[in-house]
């Protein structure tokens, strides 16, 4: 997306003026956002706040994919839905809200779940992917497709009183490339899923609204900076800042404590490694392909349900 392909019209100038005057943003950053396409996978506790700030900031094309319908038990945290939209597909409910906030972006609804069969076709239409899903099988699928299609990925997760956030695959490098400074993928950082018995969803284990909300807003913040500053593009000149925290990205963890106020351990920044030589998806001898994924190889469901002892966290 070339940031200088057109001018801003008066409506856009007024609507985006308060972010365009922020140092480092400017008209150039705004045009980059307008010319960008973001896919938000999941329209729940993460996707709602994330999509509101993505839409508000003026990202030009916003795809949202989710097969679920709005339920009353979503509404304490999924702030883009509404009681009178219970029963609607979440993507339709959320886009209805986003259209009211900002009608300028093009919204593309995908009212079904991401699958190994449809993932590549959908993700290929976008510049950046936000993982706002709620299960490991989809998380590994998203990352694998992002590696193969070379899309940056902003990933977050949350449950109960904990949240996590990381920027992956940014800037994307060709699969198998081991040039120093390649950014890791989801599998480089999280090699294996936990045994299924140790996993619970927000539906089963619950989540505090502001915890998942913080992570969703933070995801939007990372996506906006990547697109507005073109951090997903290879550095244009040797004078580009060398340290963007991307090659060895930071895993942000947020710990919310119902018994005490915000403190020194509420946020922790953890330094992760770079791309792994032996990574199943992006590493040297990876055999992962788009065709393979479409035809069931790897089997994500089985990968995330390897039998283990019977535990329950």
């Amino acid at each position, binding site marked *: 997306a070339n940031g200088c392909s057109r001018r801003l019209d008066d409506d856009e100038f007024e609507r985006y003026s308060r972010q365009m005057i922020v140092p480092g943003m400017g008209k150039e950053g705004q045009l980059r956002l307008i010319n960008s396409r973001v896919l938000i996978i*999941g329209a*729940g*506790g*993460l*996707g709602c706040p994330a999509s509101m700030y993505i839409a508000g900031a003026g990202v030009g094309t916003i795809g949202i994919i989710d097969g679920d319908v709005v339920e009353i038990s979503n509404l304490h945290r999924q702030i883009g839905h509404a009681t009178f939209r219970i029963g609607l597909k979440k993507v339709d409910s959320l886009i209805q809200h986003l259209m009211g906030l900002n009608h300028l972006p093009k919204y593309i609804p995908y009212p079904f779940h991401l699958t190994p069969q449809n993932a590549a076709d959908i993700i290929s239409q976008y510049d950046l992917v936000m993982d*706002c*899903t*709620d*299960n*490991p099988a989809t*998380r590994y699928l998203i990352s694998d497709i992002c590696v193969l299609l070379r899309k940056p990925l902003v990933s*977050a*997760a*949350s*449950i*109960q009183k*904990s*949240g*996590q956030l990381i920027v992956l695959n940014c800037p994307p490098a060709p699969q198998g490339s081991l040039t120093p400074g390649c950014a890791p993928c989801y599998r480089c*950082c*999280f*090699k*294996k*899923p*936990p*045994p299924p018995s*140790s*996993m*619970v*969803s*927000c539906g089963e*284990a619950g*989540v505090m609204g502001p915890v*998942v909300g913080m992570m969703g807003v933070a995801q939007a913040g990372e996506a906006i900076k990547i697109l507005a500053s073109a951090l997903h593009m290879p550095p244009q000149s040797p004078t580009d800042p060398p340290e963007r925290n991307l090659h060895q990205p930071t*895993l942000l*963890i947020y*710990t919310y404590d119902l018994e005490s106020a915000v403190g020194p*351990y509420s946020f*922790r*920044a*953890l*330094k*992760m*490694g770079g791309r*792994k030589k032996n990574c199943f998806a992006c590493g040297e001898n990876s055999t992962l392909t788009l065709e393979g994924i479409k035809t069931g190889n790897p089997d994500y469901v089985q990968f995330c349900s390897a039998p*283990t*002892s019977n*535990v*329950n*966290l």
Partner: protein
Amino acid sequence: MSDTIEVATIPITVDFSGGLEMLFDNQRRHSVSLPAVDSGGKPADIAFLISHLCEKLMKDPRAELFVLDSHIRPGILVLINDADWELEGEEDYKIQPRDNILFVSTLHGG
């Protein structure tokens, strides 16, 4: 001399996050005096710390939520002074005084 070596300990802090604190008395930070060498006389490494935590610190009977086949279970990140343990040698990393070791369960909800 061998007596003093056997009682020597390394003072460290061990943190649990992402739900793992539930296995350790619901406490997120523990001060631990780790024996400087394991029973075989080898300097304490992360593998030894993990077995020490299971034996001495864990209050929950569900050890399998923390270790599987005597390794840390999949889905738990180990951070040595806030850096992924893969940057530091994983289980073989030799514990240093005042190290902070963080165990964090990776999350998947949204």
